[in-house]
């Protein structure tokens, strides 16, 4: 019993250490901070200042910020969470240090924790910067938005893990994620500017649109969260089970 407790404690300590290092690494990446955290805040502030709205209710803020929160969740899930997995594999780091069952488990858990913390921090930062344009801060509102945001983030991590499982090189993955983000934004933009009838079928396929429906209370939060959590945990399990160790460029 004592031995099991000691092993559990040691493993928890290791996972905390790995999580801390991964968060440290991410915070030193200025491009990620710029595109996933600062750029959405700036864009929201600029558009709000250009088109001020007299309606400063909670619903109004949620509706105005939904696309931004969805974008942040997609951006962190794709370009942070999933891209990092491909990057570490293609750098040969995985092949040397993360090929045993326990190492894979520790790495995937720590990686998931670190990006959960990072994504939530980005969403909180966005709230803190943008909310004053729509009235006072509210803890209840923040918690609700974070719940919607995390559900959205889990949805995008499922897609990201699917892409990370493909036998693609780092540059191909970069192109694929950029292309997906672009298509989602274009689809969202066309959905917002055209009539509902013409864009309906196209926009329904857009995960970014699905995510905005969460923020607009058009989808039930609790069941959506449970469904995406189950999907994300399954995706993580299969990622660990069939973890790609060899870099794709390698002849091995």
């Amino acid at each position: 019993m004592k031995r099991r407790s000691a092993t559990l404690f040691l493993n928890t300590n290791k996972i905390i250490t790995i999580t801390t290092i991964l968060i440290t690494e991410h915070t030193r990446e200025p491009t990620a901070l710029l595109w996933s955290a600062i750029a959405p805040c700036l864009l929201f502030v600029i558009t709000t200042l250009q088109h001020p709205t007299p309606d400063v209710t909670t619903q109004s803020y949620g509706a105005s910020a939904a696309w931004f929160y969805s974008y942040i969740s997609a951006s962190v899930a794709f370009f942070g969470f999933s891209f990092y997995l491909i990057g570490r594999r293609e750098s040969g780091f995985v092949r040397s240090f993360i090929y045993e069952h326990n190492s894979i488990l520790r790495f995937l858990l720590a990686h998931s924790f670190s990006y959960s913390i990072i994504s939530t921090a980005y969403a909180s930062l966005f709230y803190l910067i943008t909310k004053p344009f729509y009235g006072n801060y509210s803890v209840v509102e923040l918690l609700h938005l974070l719940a919607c945001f995390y559900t959205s983030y889990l949805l995008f991590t499922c897609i990201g893990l699917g892409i990370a499982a493909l036998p693609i090189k780092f540059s191909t993955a970069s192109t694929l994620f950029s292309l997906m983000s672009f298509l989602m934004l274009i689809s969202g933009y066309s959905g917002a500017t055209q009539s509902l009838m013409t864009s309906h079928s196209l926009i329904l396929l857009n995960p970014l649109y699905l995510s905005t429906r969460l923020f607009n209370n058009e989808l039930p939060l609790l069941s959506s969260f449970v469904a995406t959590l189950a999907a994300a945990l399954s995706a993580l399990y299969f990622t660990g089970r069939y973890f790609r160790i060899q870099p794709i460029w390698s002849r091995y």
Partner: protein
Amino acid sequence: MIILETQNLSFGHDSNTLIDNLALHAKQGESIGILGCNGAGKTTLFDLICRIKKPTNGTIFNASQRTAYLTQIITPPPLLRMHEIGRLISSLNANTPPSQAEILSRLTHWSPSLSKRYTDISQKKASTCSYGEIRSFFTLTLLLQDSDLIILDEPTAGVDPEFRHFIWVGIHNACREGACVLVSSHYTEEITANCHRFYMLANRRLEAFNSGEEFMARHRARSLDEAFINASL
């Protein structure tokens, strides 16, 4: 005590056999060299031992509690400092990750100059480190973990004499403390000078040698490199 033994080990893709019927053994405290030209199958052999690949035939008996494996090509996370990468590797691989103080104390015991060099590299960001610094840091970090079988795939390739020296100091001391180190290289001289025994992997087969003289005599050569070439033909 034998820590690693392979019997009739074979591996190949479809009809292409890469290694065939290999027999190898290694004991605690031994440094074993694996010589072989490019593409001979050294990395494949190490992948098989680490169970990254499954053999098509034969058995691998690995009695080690902990195996550490340094592959040929690794790009470290460029934004992290080397001591952070060291902690990351230890947390991923070691049973009980050693603290920085324990690492430095052990290194000082091995060689004070080695300890100083390791400390200097530890403070640097990976993106500012030279290839030799990265290679020697990774090798020493793996040697300092609680692994009893350490596999190093060409740790000295492309590394200058100073860092090569540090890598070998680390290997000698890890073996003295009971670890078994399997190290591959193209440099016949450093393998024959530094390893207890060595194998030559060529033409899908593994040949065992106890000394450079035996290697030259068996391949009717006047130099180690000539023996290497003759064995590879």
